[in-house]
């Protein structure tokens, strides 16, 4: 049934731009302050107050536009978007309507090895609203409190073309976009704190049908997982409705994380008429080509450039380069390791292997990880000089991950010293050979298992500290000399 339908998805992403102060006043944008301590008459919408544009916001908007291959028109302007809500002190939001700061870009994503280009329609600057605090549920709270700290925090709304065809693609787009914003250094992109938010426009249509189906807009998608699940739910709901002969209603829905479903919050008839008109308090903004060039010159290295560097300069496989450049934290970790350790592929193997496994297992981000690049380098060096085995390395790594202790301390505490010298190993090997004449016989008769038995016994006796390569070599010599 669902295979008969094509899924069409477009995303509207709100990214909080990383500025010290708000977009139209000089209040701090810091997260987590006491309610209403970061407000002033301007962002609280007092009579006679006027907005003054923070040019840093425009810098970051241009930078984002460049990162997303957008055009930056020479002229953009601000508009008022009118609606009443207690979190909106002016009862209008200063936003951009028909002349946004960025137009017509794209983002390349990769799903299961399939590359795809997703169009970006536009990106525009606007101010965030405040926050309402209810006692329990909004429908039953006896009163609500208003916190205006977030009011006037700069946002960039990035609108994609309806180019995505699966929840997986939508997630890949969102992840790629997040990474690009992080690389560009324009946003913290913390979905839990709300500095990256996403609304999904979803519709379905029978394959081959040219016009789009009726879409719904789903809000409150606070994680990649929520985005994916909400889209899956919405697609299933829409297809079932169509199959039952129902019409899809154009409406706004919200994702209920607890119940794992979307539900309607506003129909098209109830939709706001925002009555946009040009903001008379701010003159139109002329963005000179010099301004754009200055921002371009200040751009940090973006992942595409970094991938080329990793492949060409350090010989990493393309796949590794793509994974390493997924986040700026990951690339920076890699680059820092590389400064003191020349083997890029080994670093990459550990990052993509053990490190990635432990992060996933613990549901953590690299940024929260206790292992510092220098720790990994010290550990790799210990393996290389034979003082620990690769297998011990894994133990050390797990301990570093759990405790943040340096490899030297862990090796010492756990007594993880590899025995490689002949003087120590030969007596052990001889003892075990002498104690097992029957197995020696088996070995001589060509039974491969016998060799493995000796290795096992030696490792057991040395508590795993014997250098496996060395044991291998010495054991062979001894057995062959019998």
């Amino acid at each position: 049934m669902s295979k008969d339908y094509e899924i069409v998805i477009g995303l509207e992403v709100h990214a909080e731009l990383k500025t010290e102060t708000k977009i139209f006043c000089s209040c701090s944008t810091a997260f987590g302050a006491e309610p209403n301590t970061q407000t002033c008459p301007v962002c609280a919408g007092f009579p006679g107050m006027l907005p003054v544009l923070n040019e840093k916001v425009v810098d970051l908007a241009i930078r984002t536009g460049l990162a997303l291959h957008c055009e930056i028109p020479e002229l953009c302007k601000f508009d008022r978007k009118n609606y009443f809500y207690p979190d909106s002190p002016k009862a209008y939001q200063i936003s951009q309507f028909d002349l946004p700061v960025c137009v017509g870009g794209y983002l390349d994503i990769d799903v299961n090895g399939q590359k795809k280009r997703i169009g970006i329609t536009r990106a525009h600057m606007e101010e965030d609203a405040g926050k309402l605090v209810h006692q329990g549920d909004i429908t039953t709270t006896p009163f609500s409190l208003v916190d205006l700290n977030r009011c006037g925090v700069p946002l960039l709304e990035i609108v994609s073309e309806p180019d995505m065809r699966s929840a997986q693609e939508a997630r890949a787009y969102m992840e790629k976009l997040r990474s690009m914003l992080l690389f560009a250094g324009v946003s913290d992109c913390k979905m839990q704190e709300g500095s990256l938010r996403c609304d999904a426009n979803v519709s379905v249509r029978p394959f081959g049908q040219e016009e789009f189906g009726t879409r719904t807009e789903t809000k409150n998608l606070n994680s990649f997982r929520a985005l994916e699940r909400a889209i899956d739910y919405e697609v299933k709901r829409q297809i079932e409705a169509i199959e039952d002969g129902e019409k899809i209603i154009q409406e706004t829905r919200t994702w209920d994380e607890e119940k794992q479903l979307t539900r309607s919050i506003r129909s098209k008839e109830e939709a706001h008429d925002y009555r946009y008109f040009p903001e008379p308090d701010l003159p139109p903004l002329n963005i000179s080509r010099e301004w754009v060039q200055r921002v371009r010159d200040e751009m940090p290295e973006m992942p595409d450039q970094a991938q080329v560097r990793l492949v060409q300069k350090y010989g990493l496989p393309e796949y590794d380069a793509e994974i390493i450049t997924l986040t700026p934290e990951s690339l920076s970790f890699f680059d820092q390791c590389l400064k003191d350790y020349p083997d890029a592929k080994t670093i990459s193997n550990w990052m993509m292997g053990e490190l990635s496994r432990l992060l996933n297992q613990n549901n953590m981000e690299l940024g929260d990880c206790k292992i510092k690049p220098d720790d990994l380098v010290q550990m790799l060096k210990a393996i290389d000089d034979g003082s620990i085995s690769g297998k011990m390395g894994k133990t050390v790594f797990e301990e570093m991950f759990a405790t943040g202790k340096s490899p030297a301390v862990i090796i010492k505490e756990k007594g993880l010293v590899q025995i490689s010298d002949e003087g120590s190993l030969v007596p052990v090997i001889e003892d075990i050979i002498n104690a097992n004449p029957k197995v020696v016989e088996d070995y001589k008769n060509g039974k491969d298992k016998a060799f493995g038995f000796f290795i096992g016994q030696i490792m057991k006796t040395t508590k795993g500290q014997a250098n496996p390569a060395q044991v291998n070599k010495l054991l062979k010599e001894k057995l062959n000399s019998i």
Partner: protein
Amino acid sequence: MAVELYELTVHELQERLARREISSEEIVKSIFARIHNVEDKVKSFITLTEESALQNAREIDQAGKYTGIAGIPMGLKDIFCTRGVKTTCGSGILSNFVPAYDSTASHRLDEQQAVLVGKLNMDEFAMGSSTENSAFFATHNPWDMERVPGGSSGGSASAVAADEVPFALGTDTGGSIRQPASYCGVVGMKPTYGRVSRWGVIAFASSLDQVGVFSKDVRDNALIMNIISGHDPLDSTSAAIEVPDYTSYLDGDVKGLRIAYPKEYFQQGVDASIKELIKKALLKYEELGAVVEEVSLPHSEYALPAYYLVAPAEASANLARFDGVRYGYRDTEAENVVSMFSESRAQGFGDEVKRRIMLGTYALSSGYYDAYYLKALKVRRLIANDFEKVFRDFDVIVSPTTPTTAFKLGEQSGDPLTIYMNDILTVPINMAGLPGMSIPCGFDQGLPVGMQLIGKAFDEATLFKAAYAFEQNTAYHTMKPALGVK
């Protein structure tokens, strides 16, 4: 009979202070004696600040530095936010609002140690032409107590005319300085849009609002304009264009000045006696050596309808913030947030304000925007083009300020369209963003008539020059009302 201090102009007071003949305290006491004597009849003030005014005056006297306008009393339209002093904007919804900040314009006067006497009555949110839309009370025209002072800055005009203050600030969105100045026989200047900061001035229509000055003569007006004009980083629409010393243009020389009078401003609807007085004034200018010619501003008739789309549209957004959540009047009986919004607004706003909010909301609504708001913006461009064309060949445009003299209280209150017509000669100037000024040019049946002078953008200097020359050759500005009923 000795001249009372309250009768004097700013520059006369300056001279006497500089010569130490008088103190600021004496001036302020004289002003309040006058206010207490006439305010019952005129009703110019919403709030009086007598105590702080006297204290400020004493401090200035103690310091003994009478530079600039230090120690000189002033009045402010109650639309200017004043720190610690109630600022109502003539509205019930702000009847308890005390700002924590000052408007830039009033702050610049504060810095020069002008002494605030009080906050002046106005039409609610500056919407009106008679000051009858004040939520508190109507103000009376000092020349005839049965008549309106004009509006919306009616309190500012009546206070200056009745010698309650030597000068006052007002705002002008479609004529709100020039029309009351004309009705009350005082000098009123609405500068170019962007000349004076709008920071701290409660917004009516942001792309049209402009701060200006009411004074007893042209010199006073120029010297107050010197203080309040100029770029303000807090107002992005204020212009970073240098402000000349306006008083240096007061030389009385208009030889060769090219003056145009637009025929559209002398058509039907304008009282014959007013037309005659303006024509007489034009003859005076010719006498003084100016060149006077008739011109056409062909799109004039569209200015008023376009204005009544643009201004209400902006107002509908500007006034949306008065929701009872953070300040101002709140209906505490409301059961939920939506009814708190609507009840606070229903009870807090007056009829004219509601009418304009509805007009503006309608004009911006989906499906109507192109036909109304966008069309109005195009008309606005055409009106500005008309002026630009004339100003290629002329320095000043002269017209009547208003089609009639002051009308009677209550006379027009039932009919918004009739009252909107009061602004027909002043609105186009706001739509074009140009400076406009009204100066007394005679009387019609004992009521003052104003002449409007319109200038090029940011060329207030030439307006002062032309106005001063006329004033020097006439005596209308020296006439005082008897504060009775005609």
